[in-house]
């Protein structure tokens, strides 16, 4: 259980806002092992989302080193990086971000399309996932026809379909009521037990405790573990 999944070494992210250089992440050092469930906490603007996006390779660190599964992400070409995250990382968003024009089945199927998986295999995988999440009956519905909790369920199913090693969840329950929140967190907990590494950003103490490790961020720095 102690295989190293990723490590950040003095990872920094700055942006230019007008003539000012703003540091969003300041020399972050972090090691994540496979099977961990990390909760990132901190007030708005502390850099939680930025850290998640950078780890998820949707965004880039502007300084320091980032190693994912032993590979140096910071010196990697865009193409390889995209290959890497397509293979190993799944995203769950606060606003679910399902594609409105696609129904449940198709939304879950989408990542598989980008992995060039054969149609028959895709069918089997999606069917399994629907089954596992108990949403078989909803497979033909469109996002607008679902409740928030159901939409987030589909969002998680979509994140999981590619069998990622790491799930990055940015405020996954931010738009949900407390019952729905608990359900989703229970699900994460369950997934974690099955071996999926999870990093979530959250405001809620209640949700944070589901994690095996809590990291507090303030002004782009890790202040407490």
């Amino acid at each position, binding site marked *: 259980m102690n295989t190293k999944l990723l490590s950040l070494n003095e990872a920094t992210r700055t942006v230019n806002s007008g003539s000012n250089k703003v540091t969003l992440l300041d020399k972050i050092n972090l090691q994540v092992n496979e099977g961990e469930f990390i909760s990132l906490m901190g007030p708005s603007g502390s850099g939680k989302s930025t850290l998640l996006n950078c780890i998820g390779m949707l965004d880039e660190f502007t300084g320091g080193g980032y190693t994912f599964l032993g590979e140096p992400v910071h010196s990697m070409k865009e193409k390889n990086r995209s290959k890497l995250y*397509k293979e190993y990382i799944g995203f769950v968003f606060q606003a679910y971000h399902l594609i409105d*024009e696609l129904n449940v089945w198709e939304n879950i199927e989408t990542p598989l399309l980008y992995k060039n998986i054969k149609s028959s295999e895709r069918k089997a995988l999606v069917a399994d996932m629907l089954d596992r999440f108990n949403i078989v009956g909803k497979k033909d519905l469109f996002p607008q026809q679902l409740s928030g909790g159901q939409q987030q369920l589909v969002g998680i199913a979509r994140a999981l379909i590619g069998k990622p090693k790491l799930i990055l969840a940015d405020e996954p329950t931010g738009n949900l009521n407390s019952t729905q929140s608990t359900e989703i967190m229970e699900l994460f907990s369950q997934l974690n037990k099955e071996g999926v590494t999870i990093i979530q950003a959250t405001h809620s103490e209640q949700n944070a405790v589901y994690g095996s490790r809590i990291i507090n961020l303030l002004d782009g720095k890790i202040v407490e573990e």
Partner: protein
Amino acid sequence: MIINYIKIAFRSLLKNKGYSFLNIFGLSIGITCASLIFLWVEDEVSFNTSFPNQDQVYYVPTNQNYEGEWRTFYSTPGPLAKDMLNEIPGIEKATRSSSEERLFKVGDNSITKRGRYADADFLDIFSLKFIEGNRETAFTNPEAIVLTQETAEQLFGKGEKALGNIVVVSNKDNYLVTGVIENLPKNVTFPLDWVAPFERYSDGAEWMTEYGSNFSDTFVRLSPEANFETVDGKLRQFMQQKDDDNDSYAFLHSIKDWHLRSKFEGGEIVGGRITYVRLFTIIAFIILLIACINFMNLSTARSEKRANEVGVRKAMGSSRSRLITQFISESLILAFIAALVSVVFLAVLLPQFNLIIEKDLTLGLGNPIHILVLLSITTICGVFAGLYPAFYLSSFKPVEVLKGLKVSQKSANVIRKGLVVGQFTISIVFIIFTILVYQQIQHAKNRELGYDKEQLLSMRIDREFIPKFDVIQKELIRTGSVKNATLCNSELTSGGNNGSGFTWKGGTDTEDVLISFRNVTESFFETTGMVIIEGRGFNKNHEIDSTSVLISESLAKLMGDENPIGNIIGRGDDRLEIVGVVKDYIYGDMFSTSDPVLFMNYPPYARYMFIKTKDGVPMDRALSDIETVLKTHNPAYPFEYTFVDDTFNAKFKNEQLVGELSQIFAILAILISCLGLFGLAAYTAEQRSKEIGVRKVLGASISGIVKLLSKDFLKLVGISIIISVPIAWYATYSWLQDYAYRIEINWLVFVIAGILAVVIALATVSFQAVKAAIANPVNSLKTE
């Protein structure tokens, strides 16, 4: 993957019905319009292609020098064809030919048909296909005639044998049908219904065997090995070698150029209909461009809606190229739907279009080339229109769009504005061009013609008619419906016979002046309304007045200070005394100055009768009175006539076509542009709904907000006006250069076009602006 794209494309189309409608409708109008033009172009370029040996068939025009200027005529000296054939190597076949209209009669059936007198080689040069009889022997009998199948059927009846039967021509000559040929297709420069041996026409006339006068058409076919340059070079020297006095020369004009490149200036081809073919092809692409611009504008305008999807897909592992593929497939799907819609439009509109262009175009969906062209247009539109939105949309960064950050639309905004300016510039150019073409046509139509074309009938007559004319004229006037009647050797609106080599007192180089001849009766001037401004008219008895002539004003001017009355015009041994001067009249090219005219009192050469009906007499009564008189005195001929003002209007066919088409294109360009503007205004209003809400809460008036929203668009239209004015000016200026008699471009036209564009744009935009302005601000503010 593709199925996924198609699925999402259709769902997104259905979800955004208004947007889809604007896009598909706009694009289908564009495709319809371009398809109509391409069908027309296809027909234009197909002219004469039904004849084989395209590389070897030539017309032989001559260049003649008058007053220092080379002018091109299709008439050649009679012996040219035969001499070329015998003396210029490489010429395989050659024929004289003359296009004539004749009355044919079989039993009680009589019809007038246009055809050609020609030598036997004519049949080979044009590879006429014989259904009955054969090409080799058709002209061995000097009394032969070859009819097209249609003519044969009309004369002898369907299914009846024509071969070997007699046709009576002009009520006196018997012709023996020695062949029936397939009808010529519609798209030939020289349609014909019959061919008969040339000797029957020349009838041993001596002048037809000399180099002195040009009267016959000459067609040749080169041998396959012959080199065009060599033959043409020899031909250009040929006429001078034959006739020292002759400074004109003949040359070869390829069958491939007859239809599209037959306008000569200074003895060289300077274009012709090809100008319009090119112009309209460009217009087709411009209209497509406008339609594609709509698509781009609307797609990028609603990019915020798509931004989220782009972010999600990228987060799910989609590469940029996959997104580009997705967006282009979407625009392709849209383009194909538009193409299907436009096929329906085409089916509905083609008959109307045919009426305007006076053609018989068909959709021809069974024709693989048509399908291929339609598919190509569609694909090009789809890809072209989708390209920019695809690159633009796929460039969004997932981090930004998923966070809900506003996508910076700066670059897209600039491009969008540029595209709107482009659309409106094109539309305004069309508007201006349309107005000016219309003005130019009206200008020429309202031109002082020198005669009165109203209530004037024209009828073709044969020689046999002429001795009866005096009686018929008296009878016609006696009916009370007819003011007067006259005879003339040519139509009023067209050129007719002409010649040079005249001498008179006063002026210089008189022999160089090309003069048209009109052989008329004494009643000519009264009937046509031409005005004698000096001297007298003709004597009723042409025999005692045969050396008197009237001349046109322009000819009188060439005599300088010399008094024209009493001046003697000489040519060879002829001496003609000028007894009167007639105000110039316009014939031939309605947009230029006509050559000087010499009127002679010599009805025996007449080919046409003109009848002027009395004012106030209903035309149908006049016509029936005329018919009665003619049926009594000239029973053998059918009562066939044309109105001179119709013939006159037909002279403007080309310009009328350009005018009408450019009007259609102007309307379509405006319509498509407005569809785009409408959509764009809707999105702008939507984007700014929060701003509008805040402003209203702060006390802004509805009119203030409408102004705010419309202002930006009007600015764009303003820029379009500024750009379009020089373009339109240049375009119309160049077009007008083709016409000697033309309008001055009036700056008011630009003002009117500008105002029109502003009004149309304002009407389009204000609908959305008003809608946004009267919306309740609570709704727009709550949603944030």
